[in-house]
């Protein structure tokens, strides 16, 4: 028994010791946005199937911010190679990257993503405008040039063409990458059109404060932040048939037999209208590549090239089939050129 215990603890120490000297990494590691995750997964899987000499990349989810933070931890084997992001990298994030030694970052835009409003399939048709969304969901709205607490409780008070439903909207939570598009393209846009910024400055706020007041969402339970994924939003709509949910275009298209989509500004969201730039609520998707890892981590360059190939990100590729809105031809060619030229930020 004694001998056994001694051997066991010795084995444990050896095991813990060798872990520090792991062999060189031969697998690409990717982390970041949960919106980009499904696309990255499709590419990673096909990359592994096509290039049998490379391993399939490992793709973590966790959100744009978390991914960029991991990305900016430094250069080396135990740091990730690519950060997926549903928004452009921020200046202070670039700075923290540089401080940690990640001096050269290559930005790659993979296409666009649209967010849509959808209701239960059996409900009436919906036609929304950014103004409606602002009037229904902002904490304070502009009435006669003054900011007042949002008095609206039903959609038809916001716009007589909307149904007589209690306002109940399931919107992306604040840590969601989608939230920024929602604020930018709907709340602030609607606010500006209705003179909310002027009303804000008139009541003593500076320009920045007025804009912040525009995108403040009401906290009285009529707008519900969903911090989980779209599955949760779908479940909320299932249980509250007069609720309105915000979804990614891809998610809506996968569940079109349960959901009815609303037009925004008279435009029905679809791959075509987003690619043309007609549908207002869309955003570009990115990933960021650590240039120092190119040529060190096997397959990294091939992975990015494969990702940018038209058979992946092109309008006929599997990503478009899943819901990604392909960038116009010229833009895709420019992305490939910029990456091959080694252009850094």
């Amino acid at each position, binding site marked *: *028994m*004694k001998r056994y*215990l001694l051997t*066991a*603890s010795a*084995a*444990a120490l050896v*095991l*813990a010791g060798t*872990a*520090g000297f*792991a*062999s060189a*990494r031969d*697998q690409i*590691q990717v*982390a970041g946005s*949960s919106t980009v*995750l*499904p696309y*990255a*997964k*499709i590419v*990673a*899987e096909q990359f*592994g*199937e*096509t290039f*049998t000499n490379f*391993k*399939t990349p*490992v*793709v*973590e*989810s*966790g959100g744009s911010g978390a991914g960029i933070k*991991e990305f900016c*931890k430094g250069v*080396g*084997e*135990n740091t*990730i190679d690519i950060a997926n992001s549903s928004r452009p990298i921020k200046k202070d994030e670039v700075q923290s990257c540089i401080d940690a030694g990640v001096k050269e970052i290559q930005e790659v835009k993979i296409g666009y993503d649209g967010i849509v409003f959808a209701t239960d399939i059996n409900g009436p048709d919906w036609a929304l405008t950014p103004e409606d969304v602002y009037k229904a969901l902002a904490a304070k709205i502009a009435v006669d040039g003054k900011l007042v607490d949002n008095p609206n409780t039903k959609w038809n008070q916001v716009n007589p063409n909307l149904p007589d439903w209690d306002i109940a909207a399931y919107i992306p939570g604040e840590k969601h990458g989608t939230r920024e598009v929602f604020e930018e393209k709907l709340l602030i846009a609607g606010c500006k059109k209705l003179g909310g910024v002027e009303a804000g400055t008139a009541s003593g706020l500076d320009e920045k404060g007025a804009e912040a007041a525009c995108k403040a969402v009401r906290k009285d339970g009529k707008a519900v932040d969903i911090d989980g*994924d*779209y*599955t949760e939003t779908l479940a909320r709509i299932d249980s509250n048939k007069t609720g309105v949910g915000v979804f990614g275009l*891809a*998610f809506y298209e*996968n*569940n*079109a*037999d349960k959901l009815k989509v609303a037009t925004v500004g008279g435009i029905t969201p679809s791959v075509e209208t987003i690619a043309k730039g007609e549908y207002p609520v869309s955003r570009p998707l990115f990933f960021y590549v650590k240039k120092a890892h190119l040529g060190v981590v096997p397959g990294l360059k091939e992975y990015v090239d494969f990702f940018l190939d038209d058979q992946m990100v092109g309008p006929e590729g599997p990503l478009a089939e899943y819901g990604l809105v392909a960038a116009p031809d010229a833009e895709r060619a420019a992305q490939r050129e910029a990456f091959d030229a080694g252009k850094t930020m």
Partner: protein
Amino acid sequence: MTDVSIDTMPVAAAPARRDIGLKARYRAERRFRIYGVLAISVGLIFLAIMLASIVLKGHTAFWQTTVTLPISFDEKVIDPQGERATDPNVLIKANYPKLAENALVAKLGINADDKAAVRKLKGFLSDGARVQLRDIVVSDPSVIGTTRDVEVLVSANMDSAFKGQIDLSVDQARRKVSDQQVAWMNQLKAEGVMAEHFNSGLFTFGASSRPETSGMGVAIIGSFYMMAIVLLLALPIGVAASIYLEEFAKKNRFTDLIEVNINNLAAVPSIVFGLLGLAVFVNFLGMPRSASIVGGLVLTLMTLPTIIIATRAALAAVPPSIRAAALGLGASRMQMVFHHILPLAAPGILTGTIIGLARALGETAPLLLIGMVAFVADYPATPFDPATALPVQIYMWANEAERAFVERMSGAIIILLIFLMAMNITAIVLRRRFERRW
């Protein structure tokens, strides 16, 4: 006579009973029993609802629809230039989906020149057919030029339609399978070539973006590695620590402090151990991200307090008479512990260990921070390779948009529950079998 005497007995002969609230106390007991039964039934009802919903949603995940097609491994499709002898890449890059499509077109009796009809077949078979057929050809190139029956997976949407999970009454523009595809499906079903089989892929495939080719293979291996690491590290360290604390250490303020801390550690939220693992193992010691070794070490830290507490309780339950007898017969303290106390405490130690392992098996939160909540398609060859774990796979599938992943998620929950139940039953059996009472 006797009747009369009883009748005429003076009532006052029986002493007046003092009211000691007997009725009220019985009532209180009855009420309390009802509360107990209610509490248990509420618990059981919720358990039943949970299990029923999981099993109802998940049992279909164990079946997968396939089409058995006579695939002709046509040299003109696989290797049109005849270069395979010189360039091995030809066999890897060949257009295998075309082989499956050709076979399906022939089976359905579609005119191969009718491009519009052929295009409607898109999305009928799984894209996984490419890898499936490639593996056949690469492992045995002599099949080229022959025809062989192959069970090809159908796409997730066709699989759902076949299982009746897609509402076919709605307009075909609003669902993922067209009326034509449903007609073909019924045709193949009538011929008996399209059928449901046991879904062994659920246990062998790695992660995939296609529901029909995704499975828990990587997760099962990752969980196995982690459990092995936890068992290898936590059991010896935990038992040694408890033996020292219980049998050898002096009882003073310092050991009391250690005891309080161990009890506190057992209650620390698991995510905290994940943060610790990220800081110490990945950032400081430079261990690889997403690897099961790091996961195993983190879970070891998390399981240690549980094992130490259980082991100390088991050691303390061995009666002092055994110790006294061993010492009295001239055994040293170490002999006393290892020859007498430890064997008697073993069932308790094992039970504690298994319960600790079962808890570690179900953890996701600490794995999130060390990068194990990830898409991993390749089998991990060693614990240093990226891997996932069973509960992580459930979480990843819960986040998917496709309907077919919902049943897979429930199926994965069933598998995890079976693992956990097996472990807990082992613990109970061990305790029943070997436990001694004094």
